[in-house]
């Protein structure tokens, strides 16, 4: 018996094991983090990370660059804030409501935008998001320039008081991990494989008999809904929904986060979100220099660093693994 056990072959980690380990490490790090780092900062980063993961689902796995994702983040934020404040709904229902509105908005916008590809897709989503911005600016319930302030956090499921920072943090963490796992599952499902096939070669996917538009639309709605979930959570955490959330600069921010972290890398947007939110925190006193630096990061990333932080690390590890395989 014992001899057999020692003779067992060395553990071979499959890609699935590695994914599980990576996810576990991330969850553990994020669970310890609030005892070391300012939790409000972490909550902001997590909201942006989920937002960027949702965006990455489109650009990274379907090859669609949406320049209007702020409308889903901001739209859900407004609806959640309104539901929690004016209607007095509990936070989980308010968040679900915001997410549902974002999904519906995603269905309408997606149905229009997927009629064109590439650059046009980016311009169309940008245009529709700008229209949505003007609607929010004019509408009564959004509070115009003031936004919706002092949104009550309420009690989650009726008994978890979200006014405590740590409780709020772990609620946000749970939402983030849930959203992240859903995206991860989607990417590795047969549905996700079809999405990648569309990204690589759309005419081939069509000739294989896939209804490409349906797949694209479904991916768009999913991405919009998850971006909405991020916005809804953000509105509850910061007790605020404002025009900043729907402005095109927010759409630009999420592109930047994903590009810097790594387009089409599962962990790219998470890393990117932490870097960019930290950068914005530290540079806040320098005002418009933030815009200049963000623009600079865009330029550097596009010219020399197209894989992003996570992409570069993964490539470096691949090379190291190949080298050790050759050595043995």
């Amino acid at each position, binding site marked *: 018996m014992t001899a057999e056990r020692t003779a067992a072959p060395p553990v071979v980690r499959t890609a699935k094991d590695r994914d599980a380990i990576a996810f576990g490490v991330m969850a553990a790090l994020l669970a310890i983090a609030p005892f070391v780092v300012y939790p409000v900062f972490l909550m902001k980063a997590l909201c942006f990370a989920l937002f960027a993961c949702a965006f990455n689902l489109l650009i990274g796995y379907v090859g669609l*660059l949406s320049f209007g994702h702020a409308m889903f983040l901001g739209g859900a934020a407004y609806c959640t804030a309104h539901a929690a404040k004016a209607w007095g709904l509990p936070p989980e229902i308010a968040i679900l409501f915001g997410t549902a509105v974002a999904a519906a908005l995603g269905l309408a916008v997606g149905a*229009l*935008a997927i*009629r*064109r*590809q*590439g*650059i*046009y897709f*980016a*311009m*169309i989503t*940008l*245009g*529709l998001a*700008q*229209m949505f911005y*003007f*609607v929010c*600016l*004019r509408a009564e319930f959004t509070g115009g320039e003031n936004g919706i302030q002092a949104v009550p956090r309420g009690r989650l499921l009726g008994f978890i008081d979200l006014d405590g920072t740590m409780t709020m943090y772990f609620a946000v963490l749970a939402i983030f991990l849930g959203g992240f796992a859903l995206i991860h599952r989607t990417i590795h499902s047969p549905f996700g494989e079809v999405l990648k096939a569309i990204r690589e070669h759309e005419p081939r996917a069509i000739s294989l008999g896939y209804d490409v538009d349906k797949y694209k639309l479904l991916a768009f709605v999913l991405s919009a809904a998850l971006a909405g979930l991020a916005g809804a959570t953000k509105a509850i955490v910061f007790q605020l929904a404002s025009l900043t959330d729907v402005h*095109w600069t927010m759409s*630009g921010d999420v*592109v930047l986060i994903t*590009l810097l972290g790594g387009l089409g890398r599962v962990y790219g947007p998470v890393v990117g979100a932490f870097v960019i939110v930290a950068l914005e925190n530290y540079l806040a006193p320098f*005002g*418009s*220099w*933030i*815009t*200049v630096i*963000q*623009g*600079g*990061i*865009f*330029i550097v*990333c*596009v*010219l020399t660093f*197209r894989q992003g932080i996570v992409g570069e690390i993964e490539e470096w590890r691949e090379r190291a693994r190949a080298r050790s395989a050759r050595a043995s």
Partner: protein
Amino acid sequence: MTIPPQALFSQLLIGLINGSFYALLSLGLAIIFGLLNVINFAHGALYTTGAFVAWFLLQYAGLGYWPSLVVAPLVVGLFGVLLERTMLQRLAKLDPLYGLLLTFGVALVIQGLFRIQFGSSGQPYEIPDALKGATDVGFMVLPNYRAWVIVFSVLVCSATWYVIERTKLGSYLRAATENPVLVRAFGINVPRLVTLTYGAGVGLAALAGVLAAPIYRVSPLMGADQIIVVFAVVVIGGMGSILGSIVSGFSLGLIEGLTKVFYPEASDTVLFVLMALVLVFKPAGLFGRVT
């Protein structure tokens, strides 16, 4: 509903003015897109730069409006040439989305730098002496400067159309849009053509900026929102034809002006609604070719 004719005509005039800027900007975008396959997100920022160059020239070199009308597009065009040679050229073989991201970054840098220097408020720029005042044309009082902007931009658009569609240089350009490799085989320096085209396209944006300076104030954000509307104009018109982008620029400006008269609440959004309608009924755009 009765609308006083004076109000109607003045809104139509504003519509035509906006249309002139839409036409000049979407024309530049279309030319650049044709040859570089890049949507120039920096177009709005370079339009702003054109206005600021004019303001700088007046403030520090004593050069007035008329010289600025030539110098500012040249300066911005030269900057465009540098931008194309140092950055955009490296992206030629990549997915065109990278060009969009790069020029978005350039736009943020330019806009941020102007804001650091000037804040968000605008600098006034005076109407040149020769164009001050207004003329009574019977049905309305027409401010001279505004009439000039419309006439001049129609001229510039026509000239651009003529160069592209009717001259030898234009035929090279159109040929290089269709098949750059073949045109190169005929001994035409296509990379230089591409660089100069980008320079010319952003020069047009700067020209629009100088024209706009006396009407709007010269401010760091003047181009940022403008460019999003121009993108909608481009989607509506389709980028396949030069004439198409000119016509759709002017007519969409007019439609926007009419909306301000009859349903002012929708004036911010009407072009985006039109964009959505065009996508439903004619996805390639009114003048576009199916891609």
